[in-house]
């Protein structure tokens, strides 16, 4: 690694992305926006307030976070795997002064950036649904980026292990979809029975969803430091493991 060498890889991905902007944005934002509409507006109209928020308000911050997760994780699975195998982009890059560390950081930071962009667009769209975030929401941005780092590193770990595209079905069905459903986006985790609650709070997305709700509405009811530290630690470990596994795959 050599300072910000990985930036060249970020720029390369950005250059390609610019050509397919519309398709990727619709792909990444379609699902969370439709969920917000169907669950928040459709289902939520007739529901009692949850933790003092309308159901639409309750699920909105979590759906912002889910947009980050989907966008980051899909970029470093399907996207990175294509660059690794079909397009041989990594091979081409490793013939230059850039090394595996640059490659891994470039891909992960790129995935996190794409994730954060999806999250920001969701946030900007919230007022259309009548959800007005508090000024504290500014501090949500670094949290979204951190979550993007975790999920793009997680995706890259899967890419380093994948034998074909079908392998990612395990990842989406067994990791991403359960996280989407059980990380407190759609129901409050705090009121669950203690063993279930403890389990769900260990999931990597749960603290991010809580932080998003806290910062979105400026309601600081629960401790946040542990959530932030835990998320940092998880992201750090995932980045390290992605680097280790991708190096093992690329350098024989």
């Amino acid at each position, binding site marked *: 690694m050599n300072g910000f060498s990985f930036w*060249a890889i970020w720029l390369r991905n950005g250059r*390609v992305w610019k050509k397919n902007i519309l398709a990727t944005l619709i792909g990444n934002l379609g699902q969370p926006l439709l969920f917000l509409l169907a669950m928040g507006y459709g289902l939520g109209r007739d529901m009692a307030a949850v933790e003092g928020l309308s159901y639409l308000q309750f699920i909105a911050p979590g759906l912002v976070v889910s947009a980050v997760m989907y966008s980051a994780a899909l970029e470093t699975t399907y996207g990175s795997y294509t660059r690794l195998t079909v397009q041989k982009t990594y*091979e*081409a890059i490793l*013939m*230059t*002064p850039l090394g595996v560390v640059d490659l891994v950081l470039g891909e992960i930071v790129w995935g996190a950036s794409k994730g954060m962009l999806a999250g920001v667009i969701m946030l900007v769209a919230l007022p259309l649904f009548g959800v007005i975030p508090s000024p504290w929401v500014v501090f949500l941005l670094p949290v979204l980026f951190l979550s993007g780092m975790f999920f793009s590193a997680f995706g890259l770990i899967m890419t380093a292990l994948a034998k074909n595209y079908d392998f990612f079905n395990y990842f989406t069905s067994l990791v991403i979809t359960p996280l989407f459903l059980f990380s407190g986006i759609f129901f409050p985790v705090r009121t669950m029975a203690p063993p279930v609650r403890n389990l769900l709070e260990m999931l990597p997305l749960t603290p991010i969803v809580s932080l998003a709700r806290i910062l979105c509405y400026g309601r600081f009811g629960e401790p946040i430091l542990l959530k932030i530290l835990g998320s940092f630690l998880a992201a750090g470990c995932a980045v390290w493991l992605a680097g280790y596994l991708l190096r093992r795959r690329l350098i*024989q």
Partner: protein
Amino acid sequence: MGYSGVMIQAVSQTSISDDPNGQAVVSVTGLTKRFGERVVVDNISFAIPRGQCVGFLGPNGAGKTTCINMLLGLVEKSAGEIRIFDLEAPRFHREIKARIGVVPQADSLDPDLSVEENLRTYAGYFRIPRRIARGRVEELLHFFALYNRRDEIIEHLSGGQRRRLLLARALINEPQLLILDEPTIGLDPQARHLIWERLAILQAQGTTMLLTSHYLDEVARLSRQVLILDHGQVVVQGEPQQLITDLVGVEVFEVDGTAAELDALEASFKQCSATLERVGDKLYVYAREDCSRLVKVLGEARSWLRRPANLEDLFIQLTGRSLREA
């Protein structure tokens, strides 16, 4: 600095490249690679003198690609020493790779980007300042006859144009060592000739090259030295024409005929210093001296051919005729 301008410099560099004691750009000693029990590269030593093109030959699975990948740090060596530009590899791989250009066997261009964007993106990996990169991209587009395709997406390029772009991309950092892995694979004769012509210009400019190819006419044309690998070991190393004369002979007769006819011919050819080889209903005669006096004997054969001995004969002789399939 235009490519035509660089040629003038090349004249003064020729003296260096002709000097047998000149500093080697690549020097490899005792290089070995094991994958578990399997030894893929077995104690190889060689050197590439500055300004020369060395042809790296061998059947599939001989260890050529593994060897090249060890030079580039893409495969970790099990033993041995690699020095490139007098720097130890892979320890200084970043510094080394900044001065190397690679034309890979498999197309690794960015399919979503245009011709020009591919070059600019690659320049970014070498941290070449934008202003300098812009100039080099212009030069390379001209040099490889891609100027009017600069905005084309890679998908729309022909095989020859893609190969030329891969070569242009490999030159974006003005490399002192160019590694060419099957640079003209799958191309039509026109496209191959254009690439050979450009490579010859680069050679005249003093670029050191390592060339692997299964097209032995290409290797004979471009390389001053060849190195034949088989089963992970160097079988032979030297100047191609000298090796052909020493190990194969001066000319080759290829004769078709029935077993009885060929038996009779074999007897006649014993009068001349030659090595004989029977493959099916074909007789190969590798003559070490002028065997013109035997031509009248051949007049009776169904069909025959007389040609100079070439690198392909040497290759087959040293590595055998059996197929190598992984």
